[in-house]
């Protein structure tokens, strides 16, 4: 099957600044792809390049197998939801929704019908005659979504569409957007800086840093097998702990923590080789007896009710999360356990994952 969107070696330069480097990405029809990365990494640039709002400086961009490098945005048949929503302030919600249809010469009666239908889908039936300035942030967001789904574009592009909403609404809209995507069988590319949004919504996650794709794959693949230290630290919340250490050559790694504890790993390697050890807070278990131990002193405890954050004393600080409440207090000495399969090892210089 031909991919809906395909990028081959795409480059983007702003003057001497190389904003996107060798981007290769394939989006099959019906897939929900998330682009994540820290601020300034080029997520918006990549999305806008797909939309045609930015001209790519090199490589090939195909939509439904057609090369669109030189096609203006209006001929690409894509719909975009902007972070600012970009609603037309001088038009009613109805006119905002049907703007594209009007340009396409769809009759007034049909436009009215389409507007009612879409308003039903996004739950804005009563607001069709309002102007955007008379809507709340959440309602504006819905209008922006409605404007995208009213025609059947080849793909939907989202640029941080939920970032202006409050936390509770954001969680709800996350599910709604994904449900909408599934219902209409759309193809979506979704930009966010929030890795939880990416992990929960997407089929395929692309991690960008400084214009380079660091890794792409299914959400759990990135979580379980990060390609490098950056991805390991970026995916997962709270973030992975990194502790310097050295291989012993006997299936363990010695951590540079007080007491030089040794923990089991799933790889041999030459003895004495320096590594960076990655330990996810949720994979560290407090005070169970089997397996190797890491003796630590707890420096601070934060309880949220549903989970508990334990920060160890010393440098580097290690964060441990436990479910529910915990009786452990600051100053307690405990021992931490971790299964060998949950220990990630990285080359300290290149940051690449070491595999046995």
């Amino acid at each position, binding site marked *: 099957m031909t991919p809906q969107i395909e990028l081959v070696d795409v480059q983007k330069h702003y003057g001497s600044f190389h904003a996107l480097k060798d981007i290769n990405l394939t989006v099959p029809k019906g897939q929900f792809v998330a682009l994540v990365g820290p601020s300034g990494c080029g997520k918006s640039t990549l999305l806008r390049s797909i*939309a*045609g*709002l930015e001209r790519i400086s090199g490589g090939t961009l195909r939509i439904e197998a057609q090369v669109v490098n030189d096609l*203006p*945005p*209006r001929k*690409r048949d*894509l*719909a*975009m939801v*902007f972070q*600012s929503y*970009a*609603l*037309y*302030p*001088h038009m009613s919600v109805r006119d905002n929704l049907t*703007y*594209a249809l009007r*340009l*396409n010469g769809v009759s007034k009666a049909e436009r009215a019908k389409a507007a009612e239908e879409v308003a039903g889908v996004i739950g804005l039936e009563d607001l069709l005659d309002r102007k*955007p*300035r008379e809507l709340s942030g959440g309602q504006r967001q819905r209008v922006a979504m409605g*404007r995208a789904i009213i025609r059947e574009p080849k793909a939907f592009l989202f640029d941080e569409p939920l970032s202006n909403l409050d936390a509770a609404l954001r969680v709800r809209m996350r599910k709604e957007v994904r449900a909408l995507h599934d219902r209409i069988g759309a193809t979506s590319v979704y930009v966010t800086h929030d890795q939880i949004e990416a992990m929960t919504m997407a089929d395929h996650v692309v991690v960008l840093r400084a214009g380079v794709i660091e890794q792409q794959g299914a959400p759990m693949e990135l979580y379980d097998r990060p390609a490098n230290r950056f991805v390991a630290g970026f995916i997962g919340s709270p973030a992975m702990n990194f502790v310097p250490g050295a291989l012993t050559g006997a299936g363990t790694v010695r951590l540079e923590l007080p007491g030089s504890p040794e923990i089991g790993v799933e790889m041999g390697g030459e003895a004495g080789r320096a590594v960076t050890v990655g330990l996810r807070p949720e994979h560290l278990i407090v005070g169970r007896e089997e397996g190797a131990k890491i003796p630590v002193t707890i420096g601070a405890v934060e309880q949220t009710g549903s989970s508990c954050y334990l920060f160890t004393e010393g440098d580097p600080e290690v964060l441990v999360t436990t479910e529910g409440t915990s009786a452990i207090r600051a100053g307690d000495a405990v021992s931490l356990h971790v299964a060998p399969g949950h220990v990630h090892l990285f080359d300290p210089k290149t940051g690449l994952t070491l595999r046995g």
Partner: protein
Amino acid sequence: MRRLLNSLRDGIGFDTLLVILALSYLMVFAGLPLIYNIVISFQTVDVFSLGTLVHPSAGVENYESIFADRQAATVLWNTVIFTLGSVALQFTLGFALALFFHQNFTGATWIRGLFLAAWVMPGLVVGVLWNWLLSGDFGVINYVLESLGLIDEPVFWRSNPETSLYSVLIANVWYGTPFNMILLAVGLSSIPEDLYEAAELDGANAFQRFWTITLPMMRATIGAVLALGVIFTLQQFDLFAAITQGGPAGSSTVAQYWSWELSFREFDFGRGAVISVLMIVLVLFVSLFYVRSTKAETQL
């Protein structure tokens, strides 16, 4: 006294004081002359009675004689042509230039700044400048038209009754276009870029974007620019004084110039005031339109 000091210290009541000052200023220097102008339009006032406070009443005689004057029709027609022509051309050229400079090519800001040079010149200087340009014997305009083969012999723009009004009109368009351009450029730059991007993705071509985004978003600005254009054009006096003096034979006389002629050439202050009063009424209506359009500002 103490209350006054307190009010200065706390700022309470100080705002009221400022408002009173501003209002009294307006009353003395704008309100009174306006009222006096209306009063003398109903009186017989000449050079000899100008100094006295009370003049013989003339009833509506001044008004009747103005409308009966055989110049009235010409002046009215000239004023309409001059005002509508100037505003239409200034606006169209100004809008075109504003759109052009909105493309933000290199040097756009600089060249746009140069256009402002025309606008900061005193009207009399602009008038003299255009006298040279329009001059029949050695004017640049005639030279260019002749070189292009559009005319065979020099046209005496200013002394020909057929063209005299238009020579002032052209000068006025040149004079007022930069002002239109600047106001419209401000309006253009206040339209968020992402609206155009959204429209582009919705399938709008450049013409459709202009028609469905730019124009409606600029409604308030356009209303204001047109209203100000009418007001400024009705005030234009310097160019007439410098270029044609209303002539030849009154062929380029407009209302504001006629009013001046009646008052300060013929010393018939009553009839001169009649024209000012009529113009004030007109400007009042235009100002209402102006205020309404600035209120209806499109906002998100």
